[in-house]
């Protein structure tokens, strides 16, 4: 039978690899660039139990449990998600591996959709894991499978590090059959799984020994590939997509392409280094491979010629090699520069966040932001948020800032906003913490934007999705939860009743203690909300632009025949009928169509 060949993204290829490897349990928390690994498993592979867990720590723990039971298990998350999961990870990696274990981390050089650019190869090494780094979709699939067999063979948890570009790049993949596997069950020795001293003492040696053995195996591993050119001057060491970007240059040059970037085949590289006059490492972000080589006494260069931040495109590599004197001509010219109007992302038509931020902008108060679609409120034209750090951080920051300001008599009313996804992910501990030393005069308002989904990452469920979607398996009642935590000033608002919502939010901001406001409208995109559209009556419109300032995509000032002043207009194809613009219009010029 001919093997079937298809085009898959890196994410889809990892999902396929897990399926073919006989994977049983996959857990994840959504985050770009890896979110589609789990979506693809859910769409295609019923044999696998898959869940979007409450946060990355829980996802990792679910996968750990399955691995303990002997199942091949995978946890996938964006790079910063590994920070959340780091506590169980750092201790889990000391245990014996029963079912193969893979942690997939989506790094984001260039930060196309992330709050930082951390290089998780560092965490992989820190946690004593072996790290694979694929360069296309075929390798993403193959390496996923290899990770499971090596993980079991060397009793070591593996990390697959993939970058955002590859996650979303399609290329050819040959499909193979799923390997059906039974599980052993959990009947291990407690000293291998109860990580308390003295059990942990010997584990330090076990971890060292595993990495040592993998290092030896790396010397002849066929995913570390040497391509010899005629030129013996330079040896390039690289991995991942950077390899393909380098190949694009079509140079006659020797390349050692690493499939496993930790531990490295040090002896082999020492040997090779003797044959060449110069070793150059090309890698994105931190000088990880370069430093490993230097620690091991191998003379090499790298970051001297290539940027420490962002992606390394073919042109960047060409420039780096030129400055290193490896090539003497630049083949690529610069792109023509095209200057034009910028285009920033904005809330969708009918977004439930829109009226809240319109109200907050008018309140002119400082607003501590958090991570979600509402982070867009930091951008033009809203520019309402004053800080954004990491998921769930708004609550602790609100408390600390309020305390410090009050202690020096500089108190002012502060507002924090947090989505339901972020609230359940890591906002809850901050909320409970709020109950500490509440004093009068600490004017804090927390607005929980309960839109029933983690909208920003593509509309995955949250623990409170069940209140908007009956088919969802979780329906935590946000209001009951907040009340039972012990907060007594809790207001529930329908933000599409604009005036009422404005009054309540402003009242709560004024209230000199802690108050919590929970909004109730669902995400318009996820829940495909579309009601009859609104239109502007140009005869009534006075051109005040209040509606335009809500920044809803269909609203635009335009020329009408017979009027000399510009009047507002609404593109009926785009309007989903939330009515917010009509409510901010001072003269009633915006009406719902029949």
């Amino acid at each position: 039978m001919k093997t079937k060949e298809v085009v898959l993204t890196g994410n889809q290829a990892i999902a396929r690899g897990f399926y073919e490897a006989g994977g049983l349990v996959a857990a994840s928390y959504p985050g770009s660039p890896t979110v589609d690994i789990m979506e693809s498993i859910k769409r295609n592979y019923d044999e696998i139990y898959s869940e979007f867990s409450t946060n990355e720590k829980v996802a990792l723990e679910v996968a750990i449990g399955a691995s303990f039971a002997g199942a091949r298990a995978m946890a996938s998350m964006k790079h910063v998600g590994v920070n959340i999961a780091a506590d169980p990870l750092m201790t889990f990696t000391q245990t014996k591996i029963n079912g193969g274990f893979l942690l997939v981390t989506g790094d984001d050089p260039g930060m196309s959709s992330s709050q930082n650019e951390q290089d998780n190869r560092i965490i992989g090494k820190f946690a004593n894991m072996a790290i694979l780094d694929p360069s296309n979709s075929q390798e993403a699939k193959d390496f996923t499978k290899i990770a499971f067999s090596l993980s079991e063979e060397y009793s070591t948890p593996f990390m697959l590090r993939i970058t955002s570009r590859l996650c979303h790049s399609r290329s050819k993949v040959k499909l193979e059959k799923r390997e059906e596997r039974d599980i052993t069950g959990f009947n291990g020795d407690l000293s291998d799984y109860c990580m308390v001293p003295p059990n942990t003492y010997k584990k330090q040696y076990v971890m060292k020994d595993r990495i040592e053995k993998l290092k030896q195996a790396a010397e002849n591993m066929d995913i570390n590939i040497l391509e010899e050119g005629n030129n013996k001057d330079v040896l390039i060491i690289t991995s991942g997509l950077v390899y393909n970007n380098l190949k694009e240059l079509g140079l006659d040059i020797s390349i050692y392409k690493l499939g496993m970037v930790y531990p490295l085949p040090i002896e082999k590289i020492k040997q090779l280094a003797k044959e060449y006059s110069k070793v150059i490492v090309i890698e994105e972000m931190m000088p990880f491979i370069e430093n490993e080589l230097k620690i091991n006494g191998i003379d090499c260069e790298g970051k001297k010629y290539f940027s420490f931040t962002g992606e390394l495109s073919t042109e960047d590599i060409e420039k780096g090699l030129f400055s290193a004197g490896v090539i003497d001509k630049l083949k690529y010219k610069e792109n023509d520069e095209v200057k034009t109007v910028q285009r920033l992302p904005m809330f969708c038509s009918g977004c439930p966040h829109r009226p809240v931020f319109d109200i907050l902008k008018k309140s002119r108060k400082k607003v501590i932001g958090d991570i979600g679609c509402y982070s867009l409120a930091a951008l033009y034209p809203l520019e309402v948020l004053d800080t954004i750090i990491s998921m769930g951080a708004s609550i602790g920051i609100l408390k600390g800032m309020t305390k410090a300001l009050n202690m020096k008599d500089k108190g002012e009313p502060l507002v924090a906003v947090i989505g339901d996804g972020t609230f359940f992910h890591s906002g809850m501990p901050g909320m409970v913490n709020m109950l500490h030393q509440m004093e009068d005069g600490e004017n804090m308002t927390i607005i929980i934007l309960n839109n029933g989904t983690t909208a920003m990452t593509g509309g995955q469920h949250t623990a409170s999705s069940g209140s908007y979607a009956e088919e969802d398996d979780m329906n935590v009642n946000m209001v009951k939860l907040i009340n039972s935590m012990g907060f007594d000033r809790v207001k529930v608002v329908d933000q599409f009743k604009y005036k009422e919502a404005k009054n309540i939010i402003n009242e709560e901001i004024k209230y000199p203690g802690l108050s919590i406001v929970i909004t109730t409208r669902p995400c318009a995109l996820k829940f495909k909300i579309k009601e009859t559209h609104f239109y502007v009556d140009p005869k009534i419109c006075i051109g005040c632009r209040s509606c335009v300032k809500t920044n809803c995509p269909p609203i635009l000032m335009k020329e009408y025949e017979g009027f000399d002043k510009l009047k507002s207009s609404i593109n009926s194809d785009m309007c989903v009928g939330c009515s917010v613009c009509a409510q901010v219009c001072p003269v009633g010029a915006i009406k719902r169509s029949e």
Partner: protein
Amino acid sequence: MINKNIILAGVGGQGLVLTTKLICEAALKAGYDVKSNDVIGLAQRGGRVWGSVRIGKKVYSPNIPPKSGDILLALEPLEGLRWSGILKEKAKVIINISKIPPAHVMAEKEKYPGDIEERLSKKYDVITINATDEGKLLGTPKVANTILVGIMAKYLDIPMDIWEEAIKENVPSKYIDTNMKAFKKGYDM
């Protein structure tokens, strides 16, 4: 066919990812090597989005090197203009001229450029169509991108029956007919 580098540019929510996938799958079926970039980053919320497809005998990087684009599929004119800098001289530019104003234009801080076609025609071979309106005539503006793909298909060495197969496999079943009509509409232009 010699290597072809295709750039797609549009606005979040215009279905760029699906269009990229359609082109990739047709290329694969026709026996080519293919690599693409989908949007990375904020895909849905009205921001600028772009993708690329590279087709040929052997493709290494999914990224199009500077000034190497052969075809630009502009799902929106301003976004087409923004990405045109990556094109070769005389490249084909296929534009859906239906405009989506960005926030700064909505707020009247800046004007939507009025000379996009003119500027692009000076350097490139420009084909324009209001694919959104044409799509509506066929039944739904959702097939606008398929019309553009139909126009592009004339410049790629991929047989018609392969395009038909790829469309059938990649669009929701109730839209197959409309998409077929849309593709032909573009192809026959």
